[in-house]
């Protein structure tokens, strides 16, 4: 069975990659970033079990992530110092079970409805829990949150999980398990019927399936994996606060998943990695990071609703036929105006940010590539608008080159298939 060998090769390759990453990116900050990526991959994939697989738009997915995180913090604090015989690597299961429990409770309430009503209930439940998180101080710790110490559980093979690299491997292992498990679920009867419910809920009813039951089970499983992500977050940060159950966290996972692409299993993985990377890299560089995030999301919705994964998979048939290289010149060509326009947008945002936010305290002068520009004067603005306009005009001129290349390659592909 060559194909099954190929399938295993993919997983083994992924495992090797996860194992090797800390040796390639050795710095402390990369380790922190990669740990966070692992957590977000699980979280985004669990979200996509709802949005991408079953067609349920949730605005309150952080509830299961956050509540599990809080539960795990309390659990570790209780079990500390050998009070309970547990090892840290198994603690994420507690989070999973918490997510599952709340998934069952809230899922029972919300999956009776589909579509917009489901989205609204998920929003309502999310706000409900977020509001409670500020009232129930005993469990949520108010604005400060609740801290814990992950090293105080029993040691496993001498590891106490104090160093970040040990936590990274713990997260990586769970990440691998969860990716595999969630991928496996898409290939089971429930997974396939989830797709059917997404595609046509009415028809699914007439082949013997209760759409409500399909949604409910997907919801519970999704809560379970979100709970594991939340537990890993609690272990990683050693603190949980009200933000982790908030609408902001729910919104972040939605944006992340959608940007990555909901139509393909690996889309949310791309989204989680990319957004986490951008978040940590850009938030050091610019104060307007969230604005870029929101604009990227809107851009994807308007021009590439399949997300990054959808865009990649668009090229899959061409790549198989070895026709991808034909597109390369056109893509390189169009990259020029795109980058120019992007520079214009970045200029507008950054100069604006500098002038409006930092201007009052740090002065309005900003240095770009060694040149001092006064954001109170007209030049930075003229340059930015000029770049944006030039990029757009040039892009419009060059766009036919891309469509021609695309059509040419597609026609060639069709010719080869029919031949």
């Amino acid at each position, binding site marked *: 069975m060559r194909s099954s060998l190929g399938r295993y090769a993919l997983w083994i390759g992924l495992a090797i990659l996860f194992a090797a990453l800390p040796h390639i990116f050795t710095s402390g900050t990369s380790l922190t970033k990669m740990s966070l990526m692992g957590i977000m991959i699980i979280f985004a994939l669990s979200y996509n079990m709802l949005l991408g697989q079953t*067609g349920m*738009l949730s*605005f309150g997915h952080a509830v299961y992530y956050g509540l599990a995180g809080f539960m795990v913090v309390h659990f570790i604090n209780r079990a500390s110092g050998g009070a309970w015989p547990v090892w840290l690597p198994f603690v994420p299961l507690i989070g999973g079970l918490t997510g599952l429990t709340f998934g069952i409770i809230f899922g029972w*309430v919300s999956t*009776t*409805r589909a*579509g*917009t*009503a489901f*989205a*609204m*209930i998920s*929003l*309502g*439940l999310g*706000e*409900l829990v977020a*509001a*409670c998180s*500020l*009232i*129930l*101080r*005993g*469990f949520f710790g108010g604005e400060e949150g609740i801290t814990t110490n992950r090293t105080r559980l029993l040691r496993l093979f001498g590891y106490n999980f104090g160093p970040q690299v040990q936590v990274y491997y713990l997260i990586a292992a769970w990440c691998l398990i969860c990716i595999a498990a969630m991928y496996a679920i898409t290939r089971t009867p429930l997974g396939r019927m989830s797709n059917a419910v997404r595609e046509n809920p009415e028809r699914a009813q007439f082949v013997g399936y209760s759409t409500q039951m399909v949604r409910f089970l997907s919801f519970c499983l999704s809560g379970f994996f979100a709970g594991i992500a939340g537990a890993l977050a609690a272990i990683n940060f050693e603190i949980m606060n009200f933000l982790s159950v908030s*609408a902001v966290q729910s*919104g972040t996972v*939605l*944006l992340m998943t*959608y940007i990555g692409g909901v139509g393909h299993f690996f889309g949310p993985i791309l989204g989680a990695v990319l957004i986490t990377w951008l978040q940590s890299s850009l938030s050091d560089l610019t104060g*307007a990071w*969230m*604005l870029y*995030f*929101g*604009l990227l*999301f*809107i851009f994807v*919705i*308007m021009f590439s*609703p399949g997300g990054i994964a959808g865009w990649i998979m668009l090229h899959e048939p061409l790549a198989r036929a070895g026709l991808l290289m034909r597109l390369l010149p056109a893509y390189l060509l169009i990259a020029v105006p795109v980058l120019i326009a992007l520079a214009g947008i970045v200029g507008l945002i950054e100069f*604006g*940010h500098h002038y*409006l*936010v930092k201007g009052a305290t740090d002065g309005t002068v900003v240095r770009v590539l060694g040149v001092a520009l006064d954001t109170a004067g007209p030049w930075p603005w003229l340059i930015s608008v000029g770049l944006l306009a030039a990029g757009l005009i040039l892009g419009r001129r060059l766009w036919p080159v891309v469509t021609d290349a695309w059509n040419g390659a597609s026609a060639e592909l069709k010719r080869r298939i029919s031949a």
Partner: protein
Amino acid sequence: MLELVIFSSLNGVLYGMLLFMLASGLTLIFSMMGVLNFAHASFYMLGAYFGFEISRRIGFWPGFVVAPLLVGAVGALVERYGLRQVHRHGHVAELLFTFGLAFVIEELVQMFWGKLPVDYRVPASLDFTAFTLFQTTYPAYRMFMLLVAVGMFVFLLAILTRTRVGLIIQAALTHPNTVAMLGHDVPRIFMMVFGVGSALAGLAGVIAGPALVTQPSMAALLGPILFVVVVVGGLGSLPGAFVASLLIGLIQTFAVAINLSLSDIFGSGGAAIFGDLWQATVAQLAPVIPYLLLVLILIFRPTGLMGTRET
């Protein structure tokens, strides 16, 4: 006690009318376009900030007129160049588009006006006491807000029942999908409805800004409540939105005024089981109540109080 009831009722009705200024636009947009506009509260926020900016430079009254128009124009542009492109990808994409828009607007507002509340003041011409009851004063500006809200309500009612456009809108409310068949220029009607809805939200923002707090989180705070209103009232039902607005307004206002907790009523016995929940006063629980109501309504009366459609 009577004092509390009277003032809470007044404030509750005021808050409810304010909610209705937003909920009516949201309902119209949803009924006609099928889009639950997540960014609706963001237009309300834009109204407040535009009003603030204009009142700071020229005066309150020019802002009162111009800011809603500006917001309406922004809304129409968003519909024309954003939403219309997304329309072909379906309702989920449209909903997500407005979600992303709300996100971006909040960030932009933070960039332009900072994260802290701005000093949007009640105009001097309205800065006096309307009346005094039981030694408690009631500001004239609040009466003005009430007046504007009621005025808008009457205006909307008149448009819906007395004009041709109103008839088209009513037809769309009861029979979605029929407007196109009647041969009207649907994209233009959509743009208009979206623009007018945004302008109404902007107007609410202009008058609410000085009374409440004008800050970047005001959209995120009000937005979810707004959804509660339209869902509780029944998606697509204007009378339902009206009733639900007043209901939520009154519940919220009264809840904040009540300093009782379960432990005050039943003794402290339950605290062992329910913990902080037992000790929390109704006032503290006030933010939770609308969402509880939303969930209960959706479970037990999926069409909302006065809606006819299941969503």
